[in-house]
Every structure is written in C-alpha cells, then in structure tokens.
C-alpha cells in the first residue's frame, strides 16, 4: 500500500469515527448541534482526500467531479437554505432519494466496467443488490417528495395492483440474478432494462401509500439508501462507505420500526395494504353532530381556564400557525393559565415534526410533552385545543375494533372538559376515517385556517383585557 493510499485510509478511518460520534451526539438535545458539525467535518475530510485517490484519473474526470459537486452541492445548498421549516419532510425525502440514485449510479458503472477475467460472482451480486435497493430508494423517495410537495395525487390505485407490483419485482429480481451470474459478461440491454424496472418498481410501490404513512416510508427509504451505500462500499472496497452506510441502514431500520409501532402499523401493512382497504366490517356509525363555536367564545373559554392542553398536528404545519400558537400560549400564561403541548409521536409527517416547528416558534422544551407523559392529564384539563390534528385524537382507536386505526395509541383529548377543534373544513383525516371526537358533546369546532383561527383567538383574549 502506497503512502498516498495510507493517508487516504487514515482519513477515511477518522471520518468513520466522526460520523459515529456525530450521530451519537445528535441523539441528545444538549450535544445535537455539535454532532452535525463533527459529521460535517468527517464528510469534508473524506471528500477532500478522495481527490488524491489513485483510482481517480483523467483531467476530464477531475473536471466532471468538480463540476458535479458544484452543481449538486450548489443546488442543494440553495434549496436547503430557502425551504420553509414546514416543508422539511419532503426535502429529506428528496436528498435521500438523490443518495439512493448515486448508489445506483455507482452500481451501473461497476457493472458496465465488469471484466469477465477478474469479476467475482459475490461482488457482482452485491453490486446488483445495491443497485436494486438504491434505485427503489431513489424513485420511491421522488414519489414521496412529489406527494408531500402536492405535485401528485395523494394515492393511486388500480386493479390487481399488488399482483402487478409483485410481478414487476419478480422480473426485476430475475434480471438482476442474470446480471449477477453473468460472470462479468454484462449485456447492456439487460442492464438498462434492470434499472428501468427497478426504478418503475420504486414508483409503483410508493404510489398507493397515503400521506399518513409517509413518515414511515421516508424513514424506510432512508434506511434503504444507507444499506445501498454500504453495499457499494464493499463493491468499491471502501470502508468509509461500508461503515457509514450500514450504520445508517441499521439506525434507519430501527427508527422506522419505532415510528410504525407508534402508529400501531406493521411495516408490511404500510407497504402492501391500503389504510382501511380491507379491514372488513362497517365502522361504527357516528352519532351526534359537529357543533361550531365562534372564536370570541372559544377565547373566553381558554382565558378563564386553569389548564389548557394544545394538540398540534399536520394542519398547524400547513397553516404555518406555530408562531401564532406560541403568541396565544404566552397570552394565556400571562393570565396564569397552565398551558401544555401534547405531541403524538406521529403527528405531522415525521416523528418529532411538531417539536421542530414549535422549537422554531420559540416554545420552550419544558412545556412540550410526549404522549405517555401527558395522556393522564387530559382528565384534569379544562380545555384541549386540537389544531390540525385528526387521526391521533380519534377515540375510535380505543373503542372500535373494526376501525383500521384500532389499537393505535392516541392522545385522550376527548377526556378534557371542553375540546376545541381548529379545522379548515369538515373532511376526514388522511386515513379517511370519521373522527368521533368531532361529534362529541364536549367538542366545539372552530372552522378556519389554523393561523387565522389562532389570530382570532389572540384577538378575543386581548379583548377581555
């Protein structure tokens, strides 16, 4: 091993340590900011030394590398800076998909260059596997991005969808197998077809998945990209890729499981069954009616309460209402009302999505509570304000075994003395299930956009003086 390669390997080794330590630090609120900087240093280090890698050759190739980093990095820097906090989930999906595509690209080049003299079946097989996973993560993430960005209808269904997908997957795997067993004598047409079908499979697999399941799906694709990167590390003989990729693959898998568990959904159900699609049996019919309330009345109710619990959901993110909600909270605190925020693990489009938004608005940690911490407190709350949340407060999850969300842990907002639901319209949630909470005797509906409704409430409380 030459001197240059030794230096490079040492740099990769340090980068791998920085990634692991950085991720570990990101797992604790006090050190999280340092963590991303450490990981960033590792990334810069690994990237810089790679310019000296003996396998990187040719002036044109050098120029292309620099140009590619400038274009990709520049666009990502610009978009990442510009994007609103509420749009973070789809940006993560987008950047993650790009990583998957890059891993697939490495696989494509490796297979194009495969030499029958030296190629090993095992490495070819791993290159194919990594390419398949990377391609699916790429096109799947792009669909997730398009859905969350509102560029595409929420869900797409067609007859015999599962069978079409299964058939497509089987054909793709067979093509991959033939590539892996080709002994390095790769047929370019088969290669092209393999990539096209793998990309198509990623699209078709993601199309029927609804908005409520997106956090799980994005996290899953994140884990898949990690796995693909790890496999490419083996193909390229690059330990930095192997370690970083597999660490992310494992961490992402666990994170996906945690999320699916919080929603009481099996990962296989998320991917292969539509919400409520085949749950069988009619859901309990709703009794009662939705009772509207004016902002002025709701404001009085809150201003004279002892304890108010706010339950934010995706609707708050859409309406960008977090700043107004915090202003409202401060007003209530000034009036000696105890205000707490209750965050369901899957409120929004990613776990912790609501925490991020509330943090952005300046809401302190110590009044934000997890489901387990606060669920018993609803009983003692005078008012529960549900803003833009739906399925996560639907009591049928406790009461109706026929409901598709039955068994999902929910916030017991219905146990508060009064419930005010801020909601744009009368429609059902992403799951399409009627929410019995909205019809309950102690529930009043405050219709309107979250931001506007919060402004009206602020106004109403200020009026009281």
């Amino acid at each position, binding site marked *: 091993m030459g001197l240059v390669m030794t230096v490079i390997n040492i740099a990769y080794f340090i980068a791998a340590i920085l990634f692991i330590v950085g991720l570990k630090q990101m797992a604790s609120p006090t050190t999280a900011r340092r*963590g991303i900087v450490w990981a960033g240093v590792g990334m810069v280090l690994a990237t810089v030394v790679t310019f000296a*890698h003996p396998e990187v050759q040719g002036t044109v190739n050098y120029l292309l590398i620099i140009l*590619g980093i400038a274009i990709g990095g520049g666009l990502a820097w610009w978009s990442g800076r510009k994007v609103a906090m509420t749009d973070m989930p789809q940006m993560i999906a987008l950047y993650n998909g790009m990583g998957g595509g890059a891993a697939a690209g490495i696989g494509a080049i490796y297979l194009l260059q495969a030499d029958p003299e030296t190629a090993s079946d095992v490495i070819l097989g791993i290159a194919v596997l990594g390419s398949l996973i990377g391609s699916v993560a790429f096109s799947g993430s792009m669909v997730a991005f398009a859905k969350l960005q509102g560029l595409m209808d929420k869900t797409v269904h067609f007859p015999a969808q599962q069978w079409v997908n299964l058939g497509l997957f089987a054909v793709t795997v067979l093509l991959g197998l033939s590539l892996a067993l080709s002994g390095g004598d790769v047929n370019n047409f088969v290669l092209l077809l393999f990539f096209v079908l793998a990309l198509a499979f990623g699209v078709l697999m993601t199309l029927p998945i609804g908005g409520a399941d997106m956090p799980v799906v994005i996290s899953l694709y994140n884990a898949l990209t*990690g796995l693909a990167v790890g496999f490419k590390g083996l193909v390229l003989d690059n330990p930095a890729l192997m370690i970083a990729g597999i660490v*992310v693959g494992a*961490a992402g898998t666990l994170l996906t499981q945690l999320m699916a568990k919080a929603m009481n959904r099996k990962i296989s159900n998320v991917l292969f069954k539509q919400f409520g699609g085949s749950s069988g049996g009619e859901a309990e019919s709703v009794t009662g009616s939705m009772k509207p309330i004016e902002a002025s009345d709701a404001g009085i109710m809150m201003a004279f309460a002892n304890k108010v619990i706010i339950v934010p959901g995706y609707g708050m993110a859409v309406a960008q209402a977090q700043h107004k909600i915090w202003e409202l909270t401060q007003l209530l605190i000034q009036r000696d009302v105890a205000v707490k925020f209750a965050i369901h693990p899957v409120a929004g489009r990613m776990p912790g999505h609501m925490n991020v938004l509330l943090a952005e608005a300046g809401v302190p940690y*110590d009044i934000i509570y997890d489901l387990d911490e606060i669920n018993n407190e609803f009983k003692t709350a005078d008012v529960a304000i549900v803003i833009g949340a739906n399925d996560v407060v639907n009591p049928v999850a406790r009461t109706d075994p026929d409901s598709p969300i039955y068994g999902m842990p929910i916030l017991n907002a219905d146990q508060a003395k009064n419930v005010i639901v801020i909601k744009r319209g009368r429609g059902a949630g992403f799951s399409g299930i009627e929410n019995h909470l909205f019809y309950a005797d102690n529930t009043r509906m405050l219709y309107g956009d979250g931001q506007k409704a919060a402004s009206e409430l602020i106004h109403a409380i200020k009026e009281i003086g």
Partner: protein
Amino acid sequence: MIEGFVALYIFMLAAFTGYEIISKVPVILHTPLMSGSNFVHGIVLVGTMVALGHAATPLEQLVGFIAVILAAGNAVGGYVVTERMLEMFKTSNKGGK
C-alpha cells in the same frame, strides 16, 4: 481487497453501532436524527468520485457525472437541513430556560 469475512464483521459491528445509537433517543430528536443519518449516507459522494474517476467511456462518464451531482446534493442538502433544524433547538433552549 477487503476479505469476505472481514467485510461481514464490519457489516455486523456497524449494524450494532447504528442500532445502539438510535435505541435511546428522545422523540423530539427523531426528525433531526433521521435528517442527520440522511446526511451521513451522503458519504456515497466519495464512492461516486472514485467511480467517475475511473470512468473510461462517455456513457460511464455521463452516469458517473449524474451520480456525483446526486451524491453532492445528498451530502450538502442533508447537512444544511439538519443544521437548520438543530439551530432552532438551540434558540428555543435559551428562550425557555
């Protein structure tokens, strides 16, 4: 060339490490951590650089070039987004205590 079994050990240990890192994380950090791990697999950039570095035909160069663009987007975008999220946590911490 990393020997087959050594590679297997690396995979196993890395998998345990990843699992261990996530297992004790408060819910509030799930999103930043997902974003952070998204950034870490941006290391694929190094792989795309090497792959493009020994590309010989125009087709390979094209594929490699696209791969480098995508990988750079993953790394830079992942960093910017994660950093922005964590920045807000700091502000809120100060304001709250």
